[in-house]
């Protein structure tokens, strides 16, 4: 009886020590769930979800403080992916946070720009170049289309231009869609 108890206590101590040591030794940096959620989010950094960027939103979802349907740039598909990851039912996008829009990039009308640098400070991905009293311009390939630069502009010289489809970015349409288009053209 005593021997059995001792064996069990001994085992408990040894295993406890091993677990405690490995918890310290193999400690995971950061929140792995937030990491995974962040990988799904579109990284627009637009803040429409109510958080200052995609990462804070991902962390809020991981903590259970935010819902999965607050990201309009991610769209329904993003919600679906998040639902799959978190094992919850997908739900329609929360319209109060905005609606999905076609991908666009900011465009600065250089005739109107006064070089105030307010848009540069607003841009979350440093995609606007320029200096005080110098004309600014958007690096289109780096722009996420978050629209954060539009409201600060004092002369309203920034507009959002939808990205036109060009040959390298053209996609084959779903065959059924193509058939419907053909049918529409004939009928």
């Amino acid at each position, binding site marked *: 009886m005593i021997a059995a108890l001792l064996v069990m206590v001994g085992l408990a101590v040894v295993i406890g020590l091993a677990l405690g040591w490995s918890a310290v030794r193999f400690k995971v940096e950061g929140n792995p769930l937030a990491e995974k959620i962040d990988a799904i989010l579109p990284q627009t950094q637009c803040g429409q979800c109510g958080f200052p960027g995609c990462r804070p939103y991902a962390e809020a979802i991981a903590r259970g403080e935010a819902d999965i349907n607050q990201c309009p740039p991610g769209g329904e598909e993003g919600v679906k992916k998040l639902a799959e990851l978190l094992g919850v039912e997908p739900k329609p996008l929360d319209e109060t946070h905005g609606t999905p829009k076609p991908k666009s990039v900011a465009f600065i009308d250089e005739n109107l720009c006064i070089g105030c640098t307010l848009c540069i400070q607003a841009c979350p991905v440093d995609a606007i170049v320029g200096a005080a009293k110098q004309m600014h311009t958007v690096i289109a390939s780096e722009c996420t289309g978050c629209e954060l630069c539009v409201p600060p502009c004092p002369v309203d010289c920034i507009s959002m231009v939808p990205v036109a489809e060009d*040959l390298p970015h053209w996609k084959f349409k779903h065959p059924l869609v193509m058939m419907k288009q053909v049918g529409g053209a004939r009928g």
Partner: protein
Amino acid sequence: MTRVLHRFKGGVHLPDHKAESNGRPIHAAPVPRQLVIPLRQHIGNPARPVVEVGQQVLKGQIIAEADGYISAAVHASSSGTVTAIGPALVPHVSGLPDDCITIETDGRDAWIDHAPIDYQALAPADLRMRLRDMGLAGLGGAVFPSAVKLDPGAHACPTLIVNGGECEPWITCDDLLMRTRADEILQGVRVMRHLLGSTEILVGIEDNKPEAIAAMQAAAAGFDFAVEVIAVPTIYPAGGAKQMIETLTGRQVPSGKLSTDIGIQVFNVGTAYALARAVFHGEPLISRLVTVTGHVLRPQNFEVLIGTPMQRLIDLAGDRDGATGVLMGGPMMGMPMPSSEVPVVKATNCILVKSDALFPPLPAMLPCIRCTRCADVCPAELQPQELFRFAKAGDFGRAQEYHLFDCIECGCCSYVCPSHIPLVDYYRYAKSEIWAREREKRAADLARARHEFRLFRLEREKKEKAEKLAAKAQAKRAELAAEAAAPGATGEADAKKALIAAALARAQAKKAEVAPKNIDQLPPDKQREIEEIEARRAKIRELARQPLETDETKP
């Protein structure tokens, strides 16, 4: 012939429709009045224009240079004047415009100075750069820059396969090329052999082209290296690179690998011919053989300048009423063209004019009954019915697990499908969706990295500013402490007081500096006016000082 041929899995026997066009000799198509030469004719980076609008160019002159390693130059196909550089309609199924150089030809067709390349004297890397500048790209359909394929790199390529399969129905340009220019094809092979170091050279030709086989065998007899010309059974798609490798060697290219990984490189006969023209005549790739067939009066092959509008060729072959569209390529893998006015490019092997009699419209698509006839004929040994299911449902991850990217889009599955499902369209859709998602993923990763760097930068700037201020304050304090120490140390509080006094004095000095300077020597009336205004100001100030209640009690 002792070589044992192997049979790849699947494939279909098709009516070959070769006799329509292979009975007529090759005609040189006349120089059109206008050439539209796209800059994106090959896989890789589009060429970069090096000419200006209004510039005179000669035949064979570089008008756009290769941009990077995987790229190829583009040349003027005839002499004339550059009239436009910019978007124009190109032979792409999307119908989207792309950058092109338009040349108004002068009819002289005057060549630029050109000379053969002494390929044996050049270092292999230099020779490859010369070939890239000659605009060479695979003419079998994929238009991959040949200079890249001719770099054996880390892999040895003991086997070089010259592909004369031409398995797709209706197309006969490779057949005619082998019949009439077999010697030059093998001259090109000589250069390929030189660059790749291949010891075994196999020419695979489908056995429905006996004249081509005979011509190639006759030419091969006159060469100082061994060339094995092999007739392979006619079954579509025997001319696919991977299928040709399996037929001739019995080896399969593993999924996701290149043929060079198993020591085999494959070139189309047209590419070998273009290489011979480039090396032994100094002529860049400015023309190619094009089969014009289908619903035309005289189906035949033309030697066509790159950039010639397809309609000119259709006119030459005899345009007919009742055409319902133009395919670039054959009926199995060809792409419908947005217009018959699009130019011929390096990838154009065939212009197939459709009519309702030759290509009746497909009956309505029915549901998949999972008969797996598609799986039986798939030469890539895939499960087309599963790929269709996943592509239709948008489950692209599963489609990739089922090796979607091993699909060569040969069209056998669509051909045999009893439900008339355009299966290949679904695979193309799924592939381009996957590519688009990968692009989006890369863009998102870039945005994340940039955002994180911005946060880091803001934090760093804040810290640097704080440190700078602290250092400045420290210096000032030390300075004042030194001053205070001279008349007798009075402690920290006095130092602070002195600091404030100094700041006040500075502020006063600044204020005095900005006092208005235009009030001296004023005429008396102006002076009076100013005094009146000052008096009014004083009154207002007085009013403003009164308590608020009195303001409210007033009516």
